[in-house]
C-alpha cells in the first residue's frame, strides 16, 4: 500500500493483513555530495515503489525518513526511533528499513526491525528497460528476505 488516502484507509481496515511497515531512509547532503545523495534517492525510490507493487497487500510504504547528513547521528537515530515507537503502537508487526547510506549499518542493533542496506547503483546513464531489469532483479532478491521473514512467525 502506498501512503495515499485510499490505500491508507485499506491498510487501517485490514491491519491484520497489512502488517509490515517499510521505511526508506534518505540522507541529504550538499556541495560535492549533493549528486550522490540524489542518486541514492532515485535508486531507493524506484526500488521501494517496485517492492510495493510486488507486496501491495502486505506492505505499507511510508514516506521516506529524510535527514541532513551533517546532523549528529545520535540525534537522527533518536528521531527515527520515535517513528518506530509510533509505528509499533499502530499495530504493525514488522518494520523494515531500506537505505543506501552506509552509516546506518552500525545503527542496526538500535533499531527494532531489520535494515536492508543496498549499495546505490547509478541509474542516470541507463535506458528505461535496463533500469527496470536492474530494479526487478534487486527486488527479487529482497523479496526472498521478506517472504522468509513472514514465514518465521
Amino acid at each position, binding site marked *: 500500500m502506498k501512503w495515499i488516502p485510499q490505500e491508507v484507509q*485499506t491498510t487501517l481496515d*485490514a491491519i491484520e*493483513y*497489512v502488517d509490515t511497515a517499510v521505511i526508506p531512509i534518505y540522507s541529504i547532503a550538499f556541495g560535492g555530495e549533493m549528486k550522490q545523495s540524489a542518486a541514492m534517492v532515485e535508486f531507493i525510490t524506484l526500488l521501494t515503489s517496485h517492492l510495493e*507493487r*510486488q*507486496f*501491495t*497487500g*502486505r506492505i505499507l510504504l511510508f514516506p521516506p525518513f529524510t535527514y541532513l547528513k551533517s546532523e549528529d547521528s545520535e540525534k537522527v537515530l533518536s528521531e527515527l526511533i520515535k517513528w518506530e515507537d509510533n509505528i509499533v503502537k499502530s499495530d504493525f508487526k514488522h518494520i523494515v528499513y531500506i537505505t543506501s547510506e552506509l552509516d546506518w549499518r552500525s545503527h542496526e542493533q538500535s533499531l527494532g526491525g531489520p535494515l536492508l542496506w543496498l549499495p546505490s547503483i547509478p541509474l542516470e546513464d541507463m535506458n*528505461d528497460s535496463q533500469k*527496470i531489469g536492474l530494479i526487478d532483479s534487486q527486488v527479487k532478491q529482497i*523479496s526472498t528476505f*521478506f*517472504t522468509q521473514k*513472514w514465514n518465521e512467525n
Partner: protein
Amino acid sequence: MSKERVSRRQFLSYTLTGVGGFMAAGMLMPMVRFAVDPVLKAEGGGDFIATKQKVSELTDEPVRVDFTFKQKDAWYESEVTNTAWVYRDKSTDKIVALSPVCKHLGCTVNWNTDKEHPNQFFCPCHYGRYEKNGKNIAGTPPLAPLDVYPFKEKDGFLYLGKAEPRKEA
C-alpha cells in the same frame, strides 16, 4: 431585363429564411453534437497496448509478459509497467492472459513458486493460490478469480487491453 424579377417582398423573405436558417443551425448543431457525444467518444477500454511477446512462441506454460504505457495521476504523467501471465491453453488452443494482481489485497502473484502446490499461481503475501486458469482456490484468502486481459494479435505480436474481472462461467 430578366424575366423573373425579384420583388422586394421575395428578396426580404429569402434573406430572412437564409439568415434564420444559419441562426437555427448555429443553435442546433452544438445541441446535436452534445446529444450524440457518447457515441462519438473513443472507447477507453478499447486501447490495446503492444507487448514484445510473439504469439507463435506461447506455450502451455504461463510466461510473464511486461508492457509499458503512460498513466496520468492528476497532472503527473508517468510510465507504468504492467505484467500479464500468458499461456496457450492446450485443450482449447486459446490464449489466456491473466492479470497478476491478487484479488485479495493486490499483491503480485507468481507462477509455480510454491513448492507444495506446483502449477498454481501463488501470492507470497498471504499464501493465496489460484489454479492455472485463474480460478481462486477455496480456503485461501482471495475471494475472486484473477482478472483477464482482452487481447489481440497484430503482426504476430500480442496486444493487451485493460484487465477485466472474469465473468463467472
